[in-house]
């Protein structure tokens, strides 16, 4: 389908769709969407990565599906149609996780199911997929899912390192012999409030680097 389009597959516009969610238009730090799951699943790196991949796949595919049938969806019931598509995708992903990474699926518990209510998904479908062609919508979904995932990975990396002393389950701090010097894991980093503080710090950092994000007073 790409060759018949007038613009190339990865035109500057499409590339922008892919890269903008990492910085200027990050779903978590700029649009402040999907915060609840970012707080809940970022205690360890592994579930965070799985969650990030799940959200990326669900966003991308539902964007694609909705964009493909955007002209046939009656305006009045579009939210219901979007929800059906998202829910289908989420159930597929959930079943897949249960089949192949059962332990992670256990850790993520309800949060995979709650992807359905993740604001990023509805936001992308309403704001982008309903008004754009399938291919850009797909790229937009990948970009937003990955931008969400990036924050998840950064936060969970910090929380796992300082809260449990491990990186992806590997006991780094113990191997470094840090505990012998009297170091202890920080219990507060494991608590959800710390994830909120970390996300806040990331927003602070991003805004101090990119002044265009700061609101005019």
């Amino acid at each position, binding site marked *: 389908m790409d060759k018949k389009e007038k613009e190339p597959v990865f035109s500057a516009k499409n590339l922008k769709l892919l890269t903008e969610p990492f910085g200027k238009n990050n779903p978590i730090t700029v649009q402040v969407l999907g915060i609840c799951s970012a707080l809940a699943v970022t205690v360890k790196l592994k579930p965070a990565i799985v969650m990030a991949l799940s959200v990326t796949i669900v966003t991308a595919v539902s964007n694609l599906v909705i964009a493909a049938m955007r002209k046939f969806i009656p305006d009045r019931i579009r939210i219901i149609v979007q929800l059906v598509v998202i829910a289908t995708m989420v159930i597929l992903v959930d079943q897949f996780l249960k089949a192949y990474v059962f332990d992670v699926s256990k850790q993520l518990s309800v949060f995979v199911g709650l992807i359905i209510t993740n604001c990023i998904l509805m936001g992308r479908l309403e704001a982008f997929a309903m008004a754009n062609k399938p291919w850009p919508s797909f790229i937009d979904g990948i970009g937003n899912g990955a931008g969400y995932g990036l924050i998840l990975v950064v936060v969970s990396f910090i929380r796992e390192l300082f809260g449990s002393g491990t990186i992806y389950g590997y006991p780094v701090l113990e191997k470094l012999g840090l505990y012998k010097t*009297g*170091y*202890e894991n*920080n*219990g*507060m*980093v494991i*608590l959800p409030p710390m994830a909120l*503080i970390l996300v806040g710090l990331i927003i*602070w950092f991003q805004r101090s680097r990119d002044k265009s994000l700061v609101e005019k007073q």
Partner: protein
Amino acid sequence: MNSLRKKLDKLKPHFSKGGRFEKLQSVFDGFEAFMFVSDKVTFKGSHIRDPLDLKRTMTVVIIALLPALLFGSYNTGLQHFRSVGIDPSLFQAFWFGFLRILPLIIVSYVVGLGIEFIAAQIRGHEINEGYLVTGLLIPLIMPIDIPLWMLALAVAFSVILGKEVFGGTGMNIFNPALLARAFVFFSYPAWMTGDNVWTEGLTAGKNIVDGFSGATPLSLCAAGEITKLPSFMQMFLGFIPGSVGETSTVAILIGAVILIITGVGSWKIIAGVFAGGMGMGLLLNAVSLNAYMELPFYYHFVMGGFAFGAVFMATDPVSGSQTEKGKWIYGILIGVLSILIRVLNPAYPEGVMLAILLMNLFAPLIDYFVVQSNIKKRLKRAKVALKTSVK
């Protein structure tokens, strides 16, 4: 003092605009203002300057804290010697405790002031005395055995995320000293709970004599061993294990008198906290489902950090309520919540810290409603006056 003045005058051009150390101007200004009365005068608008500036206020609080600090030094030594079964002399106990507290104070000031200095350079603000009190309060509300790196981390957390993020001294939502304690409390609970952490050397298990448990009155209460409580007088005078500065209600009351006489601390907040604690204590007495609830209300005043929190923490003019009526509401709710958390929540033997932090969050809301109700009242009065004058 004169030679210091001369030296400072000689150095001043280097730190002024165009000088070699232009970037460090605020550091220089900070030192100069700390040593001498500022010679800055206003040029426009109001020409009256209150001599009670931040520096004066902070110094008064430091003086008010001294009795608690001195007694804390003595008690730290006393508890330690008791735990190993020695009967120390007054000076022996004091000196031992003082040497143990000194590192805590030094770490607290070095880390906290260091961050304040750096933040002031980055923002181009003047350095102010905001941290002087916080820096002394933090060691006073920590267990004596806390590792210094934890203290440093807690101080950094509270100064950066509790104060600098919001715009520095005077802009913080929460009391920075309590934030540091809350950080340790939630991050390293093993160092903030249990019976061993409150007496010097107990965690290391140095030869403890039989019969010395190190349990604080509050942990005894939480464990349901009300009968083992020390006498009221003992707790009032403060010869009990606990955080460094909070054990002696007498020393704290001396501080309270200084704060109230100088007008630095609000007597309404202090009275409100005690009134709220009394009300809640009496209510629990009336319900009286277990032995802890039957405890007379005045016992709560002398146990744990209740008095210290009421006098030195709740009265923080930045994070507390500003309106006069609001101060009463704010104080009373702190008292009520403290006792409520203490008695009814088994997870937290001490509730003062959490109660004050929670009410810090609500202080602006309380002020808002007090101001609004005042506006409404006056509007009504004005309308009535208008009506009668029309008639």
